[in-house]
């Protein structure tokens, strides 16, 4: 490994070094503010290093990692999202019992795992990145160990993630047994060389790999963990699971299936189609029956991953751009939504019951406004990033005439509208009204915590970004075009 190889993975090195520094710092002196600040500095440095690395890209670093524009773009997304989660965590964990400092170590390690995932071009780095990510998530999910449900969530996640990782590993082994390679591009060559063969083992192996992907992305039928983990995990951690972990996995999914060429196999394509449709339908229908905001968002995230799959299935360069755009919009929106939940949550539990939000607009107009923007973005209403993203996904589907998928997307997203509106209605209810019976604000109203500075900054920035991308997507599209050109 040469010096220039090391230079190319500079962002990964910074991401790997920062948790060590923070850990040592904690050993010397326990200070919440200091740990958070160090984490933010490390993340900012890693983010800045992406630009430093650009001139040497694309570069294959050992057989495992590829540093190209695509990887850098997604690393930027992962790092930025982790930055926001850190800001949210600072306010949130300050209000929890126990020592909050190690959260940042775990977050940084999880971010490192995600960054490795988006840069992998080989099964080994794929699995390494996945495990680095998963193991930190086990601990993060259960971090607030004084309450029962976070611990329960952590254990659930541990059991299910470990078994899905086993499936994934078995799938990789089968593919290796059939083709004799674990490098994504070599897999394509090996398949091409063996044209005409039946590839049964390869298909079975790919099916197991899809299981691994499906679990992390919470696609139906691998979604069962989602509502419980979302509900149980501390709100900032949920935000991390919902965005960074899924986004990195999707980036890898795109790279793997485009590079290896297995996406075009008819059975695989069919499986993905079924998964996408099932996710959209199940996610949206189940979300309609929930009364817990975190569970609503959990099921809605299942549906959203289904939408992204529509773009993935559309194929072609437009599809990669649409997926990437959608993920960016989804990151902003989801971070914003869970951000609002985090800043409203006190020490006795997260603010996740629908009742916590009754009349919020009349008590905390700014927070309710941010949440409204996020919900409208999830519903795909104009002026928000979610609108352009949904438009882009539908347009990708239309470009290759995937009408069935588009129709399912549209019809189910209308169901989706119903539960987003339910949350909205609750937030705007309670105006003492001359026509109706006066609806009193919930008694919990008085107990909502004050908005922390970091949380406020994060939410304000996310909202501005949301509207900026919703109104003027050209600049982001420019970046995405540059980033995704090497994938197809």
């Amino acid at each position: 490994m040469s010096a220039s190889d090391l230079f190319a993975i500079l962002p990964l090195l910074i991401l790997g070094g920062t948790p060590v520094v923070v850990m040592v710092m904690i050993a010397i002196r326990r200070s919440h503010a200091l740990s958070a600040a160090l984490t933010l500095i490390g993340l900012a440095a890693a983010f800045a290093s992406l630009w430093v690395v650009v001139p040497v890209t694309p570069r294959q670093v050992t057989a495992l990692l590829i540093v190209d524009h695509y990887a850098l773009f997604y690393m930027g997304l992962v790092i930025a999202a982790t930055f926001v989660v850190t800001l949210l965590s600072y306010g949130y964990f300050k209000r929890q019992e126990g020592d909050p400092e190690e959260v940042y170590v775990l977050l940084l390690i999880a971010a490192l795992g995600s960054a490795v995932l988006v840069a992998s071009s080989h099964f080994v780095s794929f699995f390494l990145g996945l495990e680095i990510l998963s193991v930190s998530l086990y601990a993060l999910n259960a971090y607030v160990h004084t309450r029962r449900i976070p611990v329960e969530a952590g254990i659930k996640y541990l059991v299910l993630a470990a078994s899905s990782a086993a499936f994934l590993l078995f799938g990789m082994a089968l593919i290796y047994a059939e083709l004799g390679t674990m490098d994504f591009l070599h897999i394509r060559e090996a398949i091409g060389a063996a044209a005409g063969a039946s590839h049964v083992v390869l298909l079975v192996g790919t099916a197991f790999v899809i299981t691994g992907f499906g679990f992390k992305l919470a696609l139906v039928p691998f979604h069962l963990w989602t509502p419980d983990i979302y509900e149980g995990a501390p709100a900032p951690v949920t935000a991390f699971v919902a965005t960074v972990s899924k986004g990195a996995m999707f980036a890898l999914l795109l790279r793997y299936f485009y590079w290896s060429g297995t996406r075009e196999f008819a059975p695989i394509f069919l499986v993905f189609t079924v998964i996408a449709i099932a996710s959209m339908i199940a996610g949206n229908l189940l979300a309609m029956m929930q009364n817990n905001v975190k569970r609503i968002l959990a099921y809605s995230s299942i549906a959203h991953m289904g939408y992204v799959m529509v773009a993935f299935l559309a194929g072609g360069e437009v599809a990669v751009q649409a997926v990437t755009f959608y993920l960016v919009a989804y990151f902003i929106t989801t971070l914003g939504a869970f951000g609002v939940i985090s800043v409203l949550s006190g020490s006795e539990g997260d603010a996740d019951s629908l009742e916590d939000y009754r009349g919020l607009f009349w008590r905390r107009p700014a927070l309710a406004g941010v949440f409204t923007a996020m919900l409208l973005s999830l519903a795909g209403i104009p002026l928000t990033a979610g609108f352009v993203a949904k438009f882009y996904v539908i347009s990708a589907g239309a470009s290759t005439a995937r009408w069935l998928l588009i129709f399912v997307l549209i019809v189910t997203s209308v169901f989706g509208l119903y539960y987003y509106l339910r949350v909205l209605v609750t937030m705007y209810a309670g105006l003492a009204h001359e026509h109706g019976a006066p609806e009193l604000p919930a008694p919990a109203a008085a107990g909502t915590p004050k908005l922390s500075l970091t949380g406020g900054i994060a939410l304000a920035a996310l909202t501005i970004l949301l509207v900026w991308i919703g109104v003027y997507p050209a600049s982001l599209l420019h970046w995405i075009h540059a980033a995704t050109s090497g994938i197809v």
Partner: protein
Amino acid sequence: MTGGLVLREHRRSLPASGQAPSAATGLMILVALIVILLAAGVLAWFVSRWSATAARWVSLVAVSVDFALSLALWAGYGSAMSLAPGGAWLDQVNRVWVPQLGIHFHLALDGLSLLLITLTFFLGIISVLASWREIQEGVGFFHFNLMWILAGITGVFLAVDLFLFYFAWELMLVPMYFLIAIWGHERRVYAAVKFFIFTQLSGLLMLISILALYFIHHRQTGVYTFEYDSLLGTHMAPHTALLIMLGFFVAFAVKLPMFPFHPWLPDAHTEAPTAGSIILAGLLLKTGAYGLLRFVLPLFPGAAHRFAPVAMALAVIGIIYGALLAFGQTDLKRLVAYTSVSHLGFVLLGIFVGNSWALDGALMGMIAHGISTGALFMIVGQVQERTHTREMDRLSGLWATIPRLSGSAMFFALGSMGLPGLGDFVGEFLVLIGTYEAHLIGLTIIAVLGVLASTFYALRFVQKAFHGPNVNNWSVNDLRPREVVQLIPMVAILIWLGVYPQPVFNKFNEVLSKIQPTALQQSLHETLSSIAMPPSGGVGCCASTSTPAPPPKKAPPAIRVAGQVEAAKLIYGPAPEYPVAARKARIQGTVRLEAVVAKNGTMQNLRVLGGPPLLIRPALEVVKTWRYQQTLLNGVPVKVVTEIDVNFTLAR
């Protein structure tokens, strides 16, 4: 058999480019119209922290400024409009928005949009005034929503980039949703959610259609664009065109609302606060009609023509159904809401009958309905504010205590039932004449029954609520000066439209010639004799028969015209419309069609043999309407297979 018909392509000589004349002023005004409203919304919300009255004044001033601007546009383009028979926009702003996807921020104004934005701002003023006392809580946020709805509607009427149009189309829903869900009556949440879901689902279907059109256009031309003018010339297989048209149609039919898609309307109108009802009935419904006129007919003339019987049947069902249900209501607001279904049925009928009578009627109906129904909702709101009920049975005998309010209620109820001398009458009458003219006697008769039914509900409305003994001993205040000021212009406009509609029709005609190719053909037909030969070039159409005759086709017996047979003679053959896109691209050429002239002289089995894609559609559309004299073979009428060349030439 050349010649016969050569028309000068008369629009060419005009500044058809459209971009040149007034882009600079347009930049200011068209964008300003929207920005003023958006900014006023934010400002109103902001100042409401100190004073609710200030928020009301901010909104009032902003809408008034926009109204004044739109009147200035009327004055400024009054003469230009009569000069520019279609093809050119009066004014436009065109900026690249998302270059990667071919999206432009393109606002443009023509007579139709000018008419409708003027109505928008007029009713905007009315709705701000109508909420002056009704809304006492959350005043700032209320006016924020009100201003943003108006901005969204203005965007819908001005956008000519299909992405921008869809953007504005969706954007106006959210504040409307809030308006109903927060300040509405008892079942407001149910009504708001229903409204939102109906419109959102239909909007998404339209999005699919927009994208399908976008990709089809790209496949033909290699250009990704959402530009209305460019997409106009897109050629599609009839089946595809029908499917894509249906996507648009459903979105507009839900808004209109057309008969099976109307269930959201009674709830939304009834539960909304007064300003919301005025805007819903007066403006939101018009966006549906506008969409049909602006997009469905021009983009898919063939498909719209094929679909017309269904649309007209549903329109007539809507007329009767709305009237009957209105008659059955006891809630005043619900009654007025159902009358909208009936009135907009006339508008839909007029649009799809498609001759100039019916289209004039549809447009007049839109304007008059906006005013009269808006006024009725306002009156019901005023009644409710005073009596706290909308139930007819409890209201009997109001005339005794509030004569001025009751009198205005009767005036607008009479307008709504189509009393001659008021605007609604003119609209419905013209639609009926147009329908009759199009030989749709059955539909005309049923629609007339709808007019009859409207008499019943209008009279019942007045009689039950306002006449009769004052059994409940109502004693409330009559109209305040502010409310009188609101009503007077509405009364005046309705009378003006009813008594002297000609100036408005003059504006319509140019608008219509642009929207409706068939209307244009008619006017061309009427003026055929007076048009001189072109000085140089022009659109030439000629039917040429192919000789020598190939062997006759198998059954059905048809002949190819050859030597000893008298050639078919054209008796009605208007010239095609020159597509805007083709003209801009300076595409010329010949479209060769093969057709069978039936025994009665009508055209059958049109088949395209070749020609520039952009020109095929207009050629097909026009040749379809041609009529030949019977061809006699040994004295017996026969079918004739013939080839027709339609030449498109641009004047130098």
